[in-house]
């Protein structure tokens, strides 16, 4: 046992030493690489450029007023959305992205364990629908749906402590980092096992209907998740019972390393809704105006007792499945193309064109959000790490004479 421990320590030291050399070369004295080696980028020269590329793209992501090809200009009007609401939506989008980019950086600096699932590029799919929800509406997110929480108003402190596994996290650090949830905001805790949230949100929608509550549910899944049996079982049941639910598929073309063509023979996943006899539509998930109008209608349908809607949002994640995934299964051209379709600059451009936003206001939002994110990070870093035995509780609600949580030790 003792021998094993020493061996582990030596390994750790060796890893740290390697990381130091690499980061020095990369000119990132604080960034020490991931905590696990799985899928890590190649060492030496190649890693240097990989990290530099990651940083450059993060900076690009934060530059939300940059230009983009004219073909990606947004048009139309956001139905029933006041100017103030449009600005609030922008702020939540920027908040999601800024938090995400900050966490990526902190992860590379080794400030928290585990990994991080970046959502950068996909934020519109979550935030735009979440901001329209009432507090009692139910959200069933997957592990990448940071924007579902931010969009619904969950404080960044709760999210940062969740990433850091600290005591102030909603789960006290016992669950799994980056699986954002918050009981007060009715964002359920996502399961790492794909599509459990889909089924649970379907159950919540059933509960609302049975208990005659006015609330609705929203479930999120990816393109890969549509291959799971629970996708079908949930949609099918919701179709039969006309449940108050909106199903959102974020089709980012890749299920971890699996291309869409190996997930399904379909091109547009919204066709799946035909099988359940409720509306299915495909929208550009990076077009805030289109996403707003589609989700607004779907939510109204759900709230009006007309039943479910499936919305496929075509989008893209800029970075790997998690931050230990270099995503080298995709071509750089593909990534660059999608960076041009970034939802944030397109929305910012549209707001400016419509005289809803000026540069001064945008600067103020960005400044405010940066400060907010820093406060959340400080809060998380100063939040205590949980006591080692803090997980030894809450297995059951009730007590049982034969149950001994420590029986094995």
């Amino acid at each position: 046992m003792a021998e094993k421990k020493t061996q582990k320590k030596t390994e750790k030291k060796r890893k740290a030493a390697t990381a130091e050399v690499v980061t020095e070369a990369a000119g990132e004295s604080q960034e020490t690489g991931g905590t696990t080696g799985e899928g890590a980028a190649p060492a030496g020269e190649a890693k240097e450029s990989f990290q530099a590329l990651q940083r450059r793209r993060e900076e690009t992501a934060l530059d939300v007023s940059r230009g983009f090809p004219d073909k990606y200009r947004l048009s139309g009007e956001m139905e029933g959305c006041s100017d103030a609401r449009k600005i609030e939506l922008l702020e939540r989008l920027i908040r999601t992205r800024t938090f995400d980019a900050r966490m990526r950086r902190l992860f590379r600096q080794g400030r928290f364990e585990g990994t991080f699932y970046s959502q950068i590029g996909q934020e519109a799919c979550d935030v735009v629908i979440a901001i329209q929800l009432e507090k009692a509406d139910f959200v069933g997110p997957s592990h990448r749906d940071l924007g579902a929480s931010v969009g619904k108003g969950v404080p960044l402190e709760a999210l940062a402590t969740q990433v850091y596994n600290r005591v102030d996290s909603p789960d006290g650090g016992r669950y799994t980092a980056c699986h954002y949830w918050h009981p007060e905001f009715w964002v359920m805790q996502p399961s790492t096992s794909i599509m459990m949230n889909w089924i649970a949100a379907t159950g919540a929608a059933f509960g609302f209907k049975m208990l005659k509550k006015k609330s609705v549910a929203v479930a999120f899944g990816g393109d890969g998740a549509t291959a799971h049996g629970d996708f079908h079982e949930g949609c099918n049941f919701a179709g039969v019972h006309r449940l108050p639910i909106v199903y959102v598929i974020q089709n980012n073309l890749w299920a971890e390393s699996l291309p869409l063509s190996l997930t399904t023979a379909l091109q547009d996943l919204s066709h799946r809704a035909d099988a359940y006899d409720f509306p299915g539509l495909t929208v550009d998930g990076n077009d805030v105006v289109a996403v707003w109008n589609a989700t607004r209608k779907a939510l109204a349908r759900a709230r009006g007792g007309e039943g479910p809607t499936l919305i496929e949002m075509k989008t893209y994640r800029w970075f790997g499945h998690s931050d230990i995934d270099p995503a080298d299964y995709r071509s750089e051209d593909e990534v660059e193309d999608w960076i041009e379709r970034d939802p944030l600059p397109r929305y910012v451009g549209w707001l400016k064109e419509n005289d809803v936003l000026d540069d001064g206001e945008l600067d103020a939002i960005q400044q405010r959000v940066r400060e907010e994110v820093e406060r959340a990070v400080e809060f998380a870093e100063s939040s205590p790490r949980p006591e080692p035995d803090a997980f030894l509780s809450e297995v059951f609600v009730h007590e049982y004479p034969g149950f001994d949580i420590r029986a094995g030790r």
Partner: protein
Amino acid sequence: VAPITYIDAINRTLHEEMARDETTFLIGEDTGIYGGVFKATRGLLEAFGPERIIDSPISESLIAGMTVGAAMVGCRPLPEIQFADFISPAFDQIVQQLARYHWRTNGTYAMPVTIRCPWGGGVGGGVFHSQSNEAWFMNVPGLVMVAPSTVRDAAGLLRAAIRSDDPVLYWEHKKLYRSIKDELPEGEEVVTEIGRAHVAREGSDVTAITFGYLLHETLKAAEKLSGDGIEVEVIDLRTLLPLDTPTILESVAKTGKAVVVHEAPKVGGIGGEIAAILAEECFWELDAPVKRLTGFNTSFPAAKSMEDLYMPGVDEIADALRTTAET
């Protein structure tokens, strides 16, 4: 009072508890219009309507998994898995989600869900209608499992399960549905405490630990041995998870000998867990090796002749108890 059957007790308790708590709903295959393949849920649709009595599509993962969201928003779900053998598609939802959700959320949400699972052999059902698959769930943290062996406990454990805030797998034995009867006055709210085993027969020479249909075979075996001067203490487990370790230890400390009897295959079965507990906690009180009399390490056979061999019978149980008692 006219005696009622085990399945009547289940049906009556469902009626009573659903009338008592408007947040309860029942979901399962053929449970509504048809009243259940065994008629355990007959009359419920008429009494509570299609909003609360759901005839589910053939979607076991949904049946189990939807309860998590429903429970979160204030329901008390009563899913039924038509045959326990069909629980495998629901396994992921039960094991990874339902059972762990209270722990995962640091105690924020309770999961007051009772999943009824008709189980057990002796009904000529073949491999998909006869299994005892409770052991699949034995090391799942957060899950409770009860298995009534009597009419009274069929009602009492079901009522306790429905009122419990922990997720409960309620194993109802198919062979007991109509083979046993007992007096159970209407309106008497029988509650059997979850987590406690029951000493169904007192004895001093050897402890038999069992549950379900085999409790009755074991009691018959005990009567037989009594004539030969061997007094068997019979423990009806009632709750399979968490096991009532104190009651088991107390009995075996007294008799010094133990035989576990169950239908499931021996390997990885509950008998192994009990034997291990006895070895760890009660070794110096033991006067004989702990014996496990179980189903075979095969799948469950269909033909009556094979099934009769598979199920431990009164004579076999008596032999195992005698051998252990005389060691």
